[in-house]
Structure formats: C-alpha cells, structure tokens
C-alpha cells in the first residue's frame, strides 16, 4: 500500500512533543566532506573510460560550412571525434530541453552562440582529448546576431531559431508550436482588473526601467557527467545533476527507449545553484557512449561553465499609480528575459516568476507581461531564485523611489501596501501562511529603523535601505520517497533529493527520525538513483523540504503504521495507542520493545524489511491563458526581506556593505542552523551579483569567463555583520510546518543595497552591478559634471 496524497497533507498539530524538529543537529556528511571521503562524480573513473573534450563555436551566429576533424583524428591516442552530423546518424532528431526541444546535442547546420558545443574529441587521456579538440577547425558563414533582450524581442530580421519547438511537457506552451519569425519563446500575460482605470485613480504615476546583467553560477564542482553503456540497450549515467528523474525521461525520449533502460545516479554535488538542472551534458555523454561503446566522461572546466548556463539578464519596465496618501492603485510591468540561444527553463522562469512581478503588495489593478527571449548568448536558466531576484531588483528599487518622491518613510510605505494573509495576490490566489507583516516588523527592529543613524563624514557617506520580496514555490510538482526499516532496526530513506550542500540529507533524516523515534544521525539517506529511488521532479526552487519532506514524512508514517501493527501483537496493545522513542515502541502499559525486536517478532530472526512509501503532489490550478488568473497558483509562498547599511566613497564610487540583515518567513525551521546558513549563503551569493558579478560580452564573446576576471565575493567583501533572522511561522501544509528556504536569502539583497546607496549619496542606480565606476558616474552626473569618455 502506498500513501498517495493529492490534497495538501494535514499537519500533525496534535503530534506529541517533537524531539527532532527545530534541532540544529550537525550535517550527516560533515565528517566525510572534511576528510575527503564524500563521493563526487567528479572523481569517478571507470575501466575503459574515455574523456571527452568539447570544441566550441567561436562565432555568435553562423551557418556551419565545414568542420575539419582530420588533424584531430590523426593525433595518436585519439579514439574518435564526433560532430553533430554523426549524432544525427544515431538520433534523427537530437534536440533536447525541458521547455523547448531546441538544443542539439552538438550543433547542427547552425551555431547560435560563442561557446556552443560543435564537436567532441575522445581519448583515454584527457590531455590528448584536449589537444585534439584544439586541432579541430570549423568554418562558418557569419549570420547577423542579436544580443539585447529588448532588441531581440522586437527583431524583424534576425531570428535565433527558425521555428519554436515547445516540449510536450507543459500544456501551456503548446500554442507556441511552429511559430516562426520571432525570438520570443514565451509571452506570459497577467491581467487583474483594469490598470488604466487604476492609473486614472492615481494622483501620481511613476515609471522606471531597471536592468540586470548575465551572471554565472560558478559552482565549485563544475558540471560533470559520465555515461556507461550496459550493452547496446541500456545505459547508466553518473552525473552531477539536480534532476536525475528528468535526465532519465529526457535521455530515454531522445533514444526512443523506455525509461527503465536508463539509470541515472548522482552523488554529492559541489554546489548546483540551478546550473545542474534539467539536462546539461547528459545527452551528450549518453550519445557518445553508445556510439563508441565505452564509458565517456565529460568534466567541464570552471571557464566552460560560463558557456553552458547562466542567469538571465533582464530589462524590467515598471509603471505604478499611487495616491497622495501613499496607496498603490495600479502597477504595470513588462519584463524581458534574455534567455540566450536555447530556452532551457527560461520560459518557466518567465511565467512562474513573472506572475509575482508586481511585488508583495496588495494592488487592485495589475497588468504584467513577461517575455522569454532568444538571443545569441549562452543559454540562461535557473539560478537560486528562479528570476525572483531580477524582479525584486526592479520592483523594490521602484517602490523605494516612489516612497522617496512622496516623502513617505520607505518602511511605512511598504507596510501600508503590503499583501497580507487572506488577501488575493495578482493571480487571484488567496495568500495563506504568509508572514509579510511579521517580516517587515522584524526587519524594522533589526535595522533599528527610525532611530538616529550615523551618516558618515568627509568622502565616506553612510546610508541604509530596505527591500522585501516574495516567491511562489513552483507548481505542479511531485516527490516520492521510501522509508525502509531493516531487520536490525536501522533505517534508510530513499529519496531523489540531491544534496548539493544545502543539507537536505540531514533534514530528510530528521523528518524520518521524528516520525519513527530514531536518532537522525543514525538514519542513512540513499542518494538519487533512478533504479532505486522514487521519482522526484528536481532539487530546485526551494521545493525539497516541503515536497520531499512531506513524502518522507508520509513514507515514515506508513512504515510506522506497519511497525505498530506488528508491535501491537507483540506488546498486546492497541496499535493506535503505541508511541515511538529512542529506537523503540512503547505501549501505554509501559511495556517497550526495540524496533529491532519488533521486526524480529514477525520475521523470527534479524531479517526482512518494513517499508513505507510516500508520494506528495500538492493541488494546483494552472493560470488561465490571457489573464493569468488562478485560484491555486502555488503550494506555498516564501517571503524574504533585507536591510543593508553601506558606506560609499564619494571620490571613487566604491560601496562597502557594512551590515546585511536578512529576515525570512520559512515556516517552522526543521534545522535552524541549516536555515540560517542557507539564508546567509543566499544573501552573500546575491551580494556578489549586486556588487561585482557580470559576464561581459564583446560581440557575443564572454570576455571574463574565469574566476580570475569574474569576481565573486571574497572574505574581505563580507559585511562586518551578516545576520539572518527567522520569523517564526507555520506552513500548515508543510512537513511539521516547514517551507522552503534555499532561495529566500537572495530575494531582496540587491535593491536593499541600492536603496541604501541612494540614502547615502542621493543617486539611483538602475543597472546592476553597483561597481565603483557605475556609482561614480552616477555621482558625477548628479553634480552636472558627467564623466566624459573622450579625453
């Protein structure tokens, strides 16, 4: 029997005192990581394995005239050199992708960005493979290229793809099938009441445009995949993936195989941040391995990651109507997402984040348009926040400007317009379990808002700023889990959640341990292996604690029910009155048996299993076409607010963040230590995207594709004080009241800092990042003495 729940699972409100929930136990794998014992696919070597090295396009858009692989093939030690045409011989239509089937395994006919894989050289020696890849030559007929998302959306001549090819998976993309002469992969529209009327009711209307650049995930373990053929008809893929279930479906689809012939497994990931989602190198290694009949490994370098997946650059146009008293009457938003040459999950970002583009405010009239745009840049996908930080950058900078203009305290202005529990969001969905007000209150006190503030002196000016953002968890998605009690009473959790550093193993163990009365440190968590672990949509979008946590809880409950049924007999008690604690089952009579003895009582020796399964799928109503309205858009909301204190050097424009406070609604934290580190980690990652990170392109060529020139924050960039504050809340549908937290720390960092800079020196930055030169130029412009470039 399996417990399948379609409706949100009821929370165990009457549960006896919880002992494992709310405990900051150390991570299960800490020791293995510190001692170097933790498994990473990066270290995997298989007998007979070949290394693949990718030869990449050097032009942003071009027709392939000729690929010359002769010199590479002649190099001693080279096993094979494969091009897109070779791939087509095995798979007639070798295009993949989660939202659109638009990305070829290796370029066919055309290349669409600098860095696109064109051929692969294979050798038992990775150095020879690299040397061979350097010997490949390609000739292209240059085609005009488009790079800017707004220009590309309006283009009438230059198209990245001849026709749109939506994947079958998402019904709401079907209408796009076969569309030609466009770079807009998806246009999402939301209409709530009448914005024009809302603007008419307003005393003031404000309009601004905000931009964010392409940024990179820079996971410390670069993307790596190994495919291992098991004869011509079966395949194992070892991969640093956040979504093994999806990899299996997609590789099986490409090969025309049933899913049960593709096994996909992962180990620990050295960071993911969204870069390792859906399908990256897996299709390529799978095809290569089948062609050469040997295991094939491709491990990217840090540099190559910049050519594989990025975060969307955006342009966001906002227009807001507001009354003299400070009530927002209408908000209109147009967002352009620079998706690069292949859609990846961009269309989902465009829609799933797009519908929150008006911010966490209670606004009567809303009109949102969100466009996923193809350009000749590396593909953009998910990155910690799934588009939310770009939108919050826009709407919270905009909101601050309005408050300033109206001379209303920015915190009060937000408080007056905030979306409260029980009120409808722009989609029409009524907000539940959302602690927006509590988050603002906690932010206010953490920032000592309204108290006197040191403004600095001389060329160092100080300021403080705040911002708040929110996110809907992605829907609809499913997670399944198995909890297995072995004959000796020890326990394993089988789940498809990928632990990429976020601590999910520990949290899943805590949940199972809580239900079964075990020590969480003794629970083993079996890493994703599609031959073993049940389906899980993916480890993304802060969904795992909620979805997989619920599935694990249900599985553990089922196992416990079976355990109680057996124990009832052994203890001569009513199973419904039994309780678990300390690896044992107790009856009201006081009699107690260890779990091992309960199992022995039925199998008569140390043998057998007690298996519980759980599957969790929250309800969902997809937004209606045209107005984007839905009464059930998401299973839960996340709220994150940030306060920043900064020092600006007015002579150089350099900004130093001295204090960064993150306040989050995470429901009930299962492991507060992990939650705090996720919040701080997210905030510091976003600090980099705010202050220094931007992939710079010259005619489509990334010019700083390495950690030498693409600068993530170092220890000296960390604010003197970085604080994470958890607002106690309860997600009534979550496991033990929990909701997700992996992205919340990122939401509001950028606008809080820009708002603080404005507070300090009176200039507004509209485009990220806030490099010294950007701020300096704004300062000079404000003094009517703009920095001239021709000198």
């Amino acid at each position, binding site marked *: 029997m399996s417990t399948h729940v379609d409706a949100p699972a009821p929370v165990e409100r009457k549960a006896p005192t919880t002992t494992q929930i709310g405990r900051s136990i150390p991570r299960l794998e800490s020791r293995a990581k510190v001692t170097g014992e933790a498994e990473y696919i990066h270290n995997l070597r298989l007998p007979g394995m070949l290394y693949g090295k990718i030869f990449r396009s050097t032009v942003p858009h071009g027709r392939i005239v000729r690929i010359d692989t002769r010199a590479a093939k002649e190099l001693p030690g080279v096993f094979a050199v494969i091009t897109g045409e070779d791939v087509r011989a095995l798979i007639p239509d070798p295009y993949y992708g989660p939202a659109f089937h638009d990305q070829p395994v290796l370029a066919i006919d055309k290349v669409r960005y600098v860095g696109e894989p064109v051929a692969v050289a294979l050798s038992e020696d990775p*150095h020879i493979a*690299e*040397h061979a890849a*350097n010997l490949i030559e390609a000739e292209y007929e240059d085609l005009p290229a488009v790079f800017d998302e707004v220009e590309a959306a309006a283009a009438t001549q230059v198209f990245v793809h001849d026709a749109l090819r939506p994947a079958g998976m998402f019904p709401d993309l079907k209408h796009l099938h076969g569309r030609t002469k466009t770079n807009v992969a998806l246009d999402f529209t939301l209409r709530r009441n009448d914005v024009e009327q809302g603007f008419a009711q307003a005393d003031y209307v404000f309009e601004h445009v905000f931009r964010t650049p392409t940024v990179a995930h820079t996971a410390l373990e670069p993307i790596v995949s190994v495919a291992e053929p098991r004869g011509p008809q079966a395949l194992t893929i070892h991969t640093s993936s956040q979504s093994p279930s999806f990899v299996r479906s997609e590789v099986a689809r490409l090969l025309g195989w049933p899913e049960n012939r593709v096994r996909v497994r992962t180990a620990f990931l050295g960071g993911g941040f969204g870069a390792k989602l859906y399908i990256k190198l897996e299709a390529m290694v799978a095809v290569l391995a089948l062609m050469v009949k040997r295991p094939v490994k491709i491990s990217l*370098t840090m*540099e190559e990651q910049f050519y594989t997946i990025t975060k969307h650059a955006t342009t966001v146009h906002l227009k807001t109507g507001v009354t003299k008293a400070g009530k927002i009457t209408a908000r209109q938003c147009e967002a352009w997402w620079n998706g690069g040459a292949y859609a990846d999950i961009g269309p989902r970002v465009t829609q799933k984040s797009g519908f929150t583009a008006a911010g966490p405010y209670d606004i009567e009239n809303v009109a949102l348009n969100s466009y996923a745009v193809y350009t000749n840049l590396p593909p953009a996908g998910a990155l910690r926040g799934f588009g939310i930080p770009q939108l919050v950058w826009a709407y919270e900078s905009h909101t601050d400007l309005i408050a300033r203009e109206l001379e209303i305290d920015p915190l009060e202005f937000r408080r007056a317009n905030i979306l409260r529990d029980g009120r409808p969001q722009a989609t029409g969905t009524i907000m539940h379990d959302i602690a927006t007000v509590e988050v603002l209150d906690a932010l206010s006190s953490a920032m000592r808002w309204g108290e006197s503030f040191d403004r600095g002196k001389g060329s160092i000016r100080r300021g403080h700023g705040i911002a708040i953002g929110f996110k809907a968890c992605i829907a609809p998605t499913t997670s399944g889990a198995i909890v297995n009690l072995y004959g000796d009473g020890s326990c394993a959790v089988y789940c498809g959640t990928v632990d990429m550093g976020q601590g999910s193993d520990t949290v899943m163990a805590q949940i199972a341990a809580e239900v079964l009365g075990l020590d969480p440190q003794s629970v083993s968590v079996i890493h994703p292996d599609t031959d073993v672990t049940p389906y899980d949509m993916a480890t993304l979008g802060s969904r795992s604690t909620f979805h997989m946590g619920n599935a694990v809880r249900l599985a553990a409950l089922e196992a416990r029910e079976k355990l109680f049924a057996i124990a009832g007999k052994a203890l001569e008690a009513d199973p419904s009155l039994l309780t678990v604690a300390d690896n044992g089952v107790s009856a009201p009579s006081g009699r107690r048996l260890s779990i091992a003895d309960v199992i022995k009582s039925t199998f008569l020796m140390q043998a057998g299993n007690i298996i519980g399964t759980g599957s969790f799928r929250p309800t969902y109503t997809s937004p209606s076409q045209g107005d984007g309205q839905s009464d059930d858009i998401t299973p839960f909301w996340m709220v994150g607010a940030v306060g920043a204190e900064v020092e600006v050097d007015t*002579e*150089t424009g*350099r900004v130093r963040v001295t204090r960064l406070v993150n306040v989050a609604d995470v429901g009930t934290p299962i492991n507060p230590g992990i939650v705090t580190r996720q919040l701080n980690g997210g905030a510091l990652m976003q600090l*980099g995207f705010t*202050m*220094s990170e931007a992939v*710079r392109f010259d005619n489509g060529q990334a*010019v*700083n594709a*390495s950690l*030498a*020139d693409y*600068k*993530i*924050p*170092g*220890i*000296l*960039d960390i604010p003197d004080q970085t604080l994470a504050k958890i607002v106690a809340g309860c997600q009534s549908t979550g496991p033990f009241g929990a909701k997700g937290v992996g992205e919340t720390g990122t939401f509001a960092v950028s606008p809080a800092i820009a708002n603080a800079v404005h507070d300090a020196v009176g200039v507004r930055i509209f485009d990220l990042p806030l*490099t*010294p*030169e950007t701020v*300096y*130029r704004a300062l000079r412009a404000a003094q009517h003495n703009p*920095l*001239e*470039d021709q*000198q």
Partner: protein
Amino acid sequence: MIPFDLQEPASLAEAIALLDPDDPSVRPVAGGTALMLMMKAGLFQPTRLISLRRLEGDLRRVHVDEHGDLHLGALVPLSKLELSPLVAEHAPAVSETCRTLSNVRVRNVATLGGHVAHGDPHMDLPPLLIALGARARAVGPRGERWIDAADLFVGYYQTALERDELLAEIVIPAPSPDSSAAYVKFTALSADDWPAVGVAAAVRRREGVILDAVLAVSAATEKPIRLAAAEAAIRGKSTSSGSFDEAAEAAAHEVEPLADIRGSTAYKREMVRVHVRRALIKASHS
C-alpha cells in the same frame, strides 16, 4: 593541458643551463600561480618548465646587509614578505601591501621572483619597488647584472630579463631617516581582486616640505611607470593637501590608462588622480 617536460634542477647554475634563449616555450616556474593561469587559458603552452622549487640558499632568504639594504630572495613566498619582522621594520609598506595582495592561498605559494618577472602590469608590488628605488639582481649564462626596478618593466607582460636569465633577488636600499613610503590599492570588483589602479609614493620631507618624491602607478597602465610630472609638481612643495592636489592633477594628465573590465579609460584616470593624492597623504603621514 598538453603534457610537457618538467625539470627540477638543484642549483641556480643548472637551472640557467636548462633555459633556452631562443625558445619562448621554455620557461622557469616558481610558485606557478601566474603561469598556471596562462596555461589553463591556453595562452601559454610550454614544452619545458624549469621548476625552481628545489633551489635553496639566498634565493629563499630575507636579510639586511651591512649597509642596511634589505635583500629579498626571488623564491621568498609573498606570505613571508607579509609576515617577516625584517621586512616590517625596513620596508613596512611592502608588508602592508602583501596583506591585501590576492589571498592567503596565493601568497603562500606565489614568489617575489615570479611576481616581478611575470611583467604583468596588474601586480601590486612593482610600483612600490620602483618608488623604493629597489634593484633586481639577474643571473644568466654570462654572469650577473643589476637592473633598477624602474627599468625592469619594459612593456605589457615584458621585462628587461633575458629568456636565459633568472631573477635572484630584489634589494631595497636602506631608507633615509627623512623618507617614508606607501602604496594604495584600488580594486573595482572584489576586495581581493587585482588592482584596477595601484599607486606607490615615496617621499623625503623635512619640516613640512617635500624634498623629493617618487610616484609610480600600475594596473591602470600598460606597465608600471613613474609619474614624472606629478613628481615634479610636488618637489619642494609643502605637505599640505593643496600641493597634493596639484600632483594628482599632473598625474591624471600624464597617464594613459587602458580600459578593461575593471574600468574605462576616463574612470581610471580619475582613480589615478584620487589615489595619487591618497598615496601622498599616506606616505607623508607614515
């Protein structure tokens, strides 16, 4: 990376003998932090590397000679410069500069010789070595010679060293009692980044008057250079901020900054102005 021949000679003479004056794909390697970056980027493909890791003796020593000159061996790691009490006493600006030079992992491995011999204009120490009047001792098949730090950097990633010469040491002359020096580093991206602009100043002053000053800039420019006009502008002037402004103005006029991802030409020119002033203030208050 394509395989190459790695030699690990045990003496300086052996190392020099392994160098090849005519083959740019043969190079010495010390800490490897700069060279590996180039190799990974495919900018340099060696056929042979001569590792200096087994060389011992004065190459690894920091000492002060009988004239009070500070000798820094070419194989001394930057972290040792940072922490050495001798350096702190005789050239405090060098210790201080090392503290914000990259990060502790790089400093533990990177050597002074590699730092200087790389000829990378984005390095922190070269302008300071110029300002301090340092000299480099180079050893080659024809013996040794001395090169002034100001003459060492001849172009973008180009030094006055011959292909078959090795840098053996850097010598910083004993400071006169009325002199002081400072380096200011300005980063445009992360705090531990290479500088966008680096300015070093060494001043000799008496009773509130600058007798003379050496000013050098790096990172913004094609190579580390002295700022002659700015030096002239400050000579004989008082240590008031007004005269510093004049020097800063002169410096902004004389430099030709190169634009890159760390800043435009116009912006770097402004940053040279700001940091020449700041370097002068710092040097005359230390």
